[in-house]
């Protein structure tokens, strides 16, 4: 295979992972079908979204607002459900836009 992924003979015995913290490189953002879109004019900076995010994908910025890291965000919508001010709306992902966003990031 030319995918750069390991073949079966290259795996460590028992599929042991020798690099600590390697889960950080695993892109769970791929699983998302909806993404959280924020209207920060309503945000009271309470951090409820940050606390409830089951993947710790939400980070606080310098101004005290919160943003989901779309590399990890699975689009579960818990943040939108828990937000007391209705800041977050879950919007369906459009594949092309998702790819564009990723290109810009790179």
């Amino acid at each position: 295979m030319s995918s750069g992924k390991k073949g079966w003979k290259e795996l460590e015995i028992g599929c042991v992972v020798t690099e600590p913290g390697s889960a950080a490189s695993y892109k769970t953002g791929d699983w998302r079908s909806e993404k959280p879109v924020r209207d920060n004019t309503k945000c009271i900076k309470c951090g409820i979204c940050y606390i409830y995010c089951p993947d710790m994908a939400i980070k606080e910025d310098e101004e005290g607002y919160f943003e989901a890291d779309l590399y990890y965000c699975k689009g579960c919508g818990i943040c939108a459900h828990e937000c007391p001010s209705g800041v977050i709306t879950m919007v369906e992902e459009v594949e092309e836009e998702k790819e564009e966003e990723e290109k810009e990031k790179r």
Partner: protein
Amino acid sequence: MTKGRLVGLEGSFAVAEAVRMANVDVISAYPITPQTHIVERLAELIANGELDAEFICVESEHSAMSACVGASAAGARVFTCSASQGLELMHEVLYIPSSMRLPVVAVTANRALSAPLSVWCDHSDAMAIRDIGWIQIFAENNQQAFDLTVCAYRIAEDKKVLFPAMIHIDGFYLSHVVESMILPDEEEVAHFIPDYVHPFVLDPENPVSMGCFGPPFIYPEAKKAQEVDLENTKPKIQETWNEFGEIFGRHYLPVETYKMDDASSALLTMGSSGETAMLAVDEMREEGKAVGLIRLRLWRPFPFKEFREAVKDVELLVVLDRAISFGMGGPVCSEVKSALYDKRKDLNIVGYIGGLGGRDITVEGFKYMINRALAYPEKEEEFEIIGVRE
């Protein structure tokens, strides 16, 4: 050159002695029925200071295997045993050490499954765990229960193997029966099973992650590696048994034969019934019938080559199953047929199911099976459950 002293030991105690001589670090077990005297004896040895090991008395067999996985991952030499419903409760966790390549050694005292509730011997529990990925070996008597348990540590911990190994001993027929056997010298056994170091252990200085999340991009590679590696343990298993034979004078093979040289019909058994079957073969030989016996010692990885070699000259193969794969028949017979498909289309294979839930199979019973198969070579049924009242 059988070294050691002649003793009378119950099968459970014979296994406990093997585990003691293997100087295990951790024993984890659930102590109530269907548990046998194996862990009862081990607990006693630890309490008496005769074995320096940690005994984890867990709350279920599921936890027993889980504790073994954890201890083995930390580099300990471990042991557990179970049977029947207990083994079924352990089932989910049995796949973990084989996938994580941890050399856990376990003994199963084969017993029937409920319902109706039975604590007696058959192979229902063993057949329910055929696919767990362990090396699985069937013992025939208490001497073998001891010898094969000793060898199991050596095999499982070999760096070319690193798979868990399970020794099956027939419940009651071996586990609760006192037989004469040779108990080898403790130091020689210890020498035969040296300390081992797993290439990966849980160690804060050298962190690794075991049993990780395996998404579709890696899972099939992991499973192929596991299957190929299990298949490749066969030479090491034989090599270990050869070495054991040289030192202790008792020799084991993946497929063992009895009076097969000129046999035209063969009977196939697993576990303790092989010895009764031998007597049946002897009697039939006296009657002038060219009958032999094949005993499947190594069950997983399945010894295709040796098995095909053993049956190459026979015209009739009678397979005894001590379990039912409901809706399918005898599990051993099904596997034997599949192993011979394309190789021996002319071989008449007759499957019998018997000895369920501790029903004895006598010498007469085996003779009946062989004679019946000889008399009715073109059977229409796939299999027959024998020795059952109408």
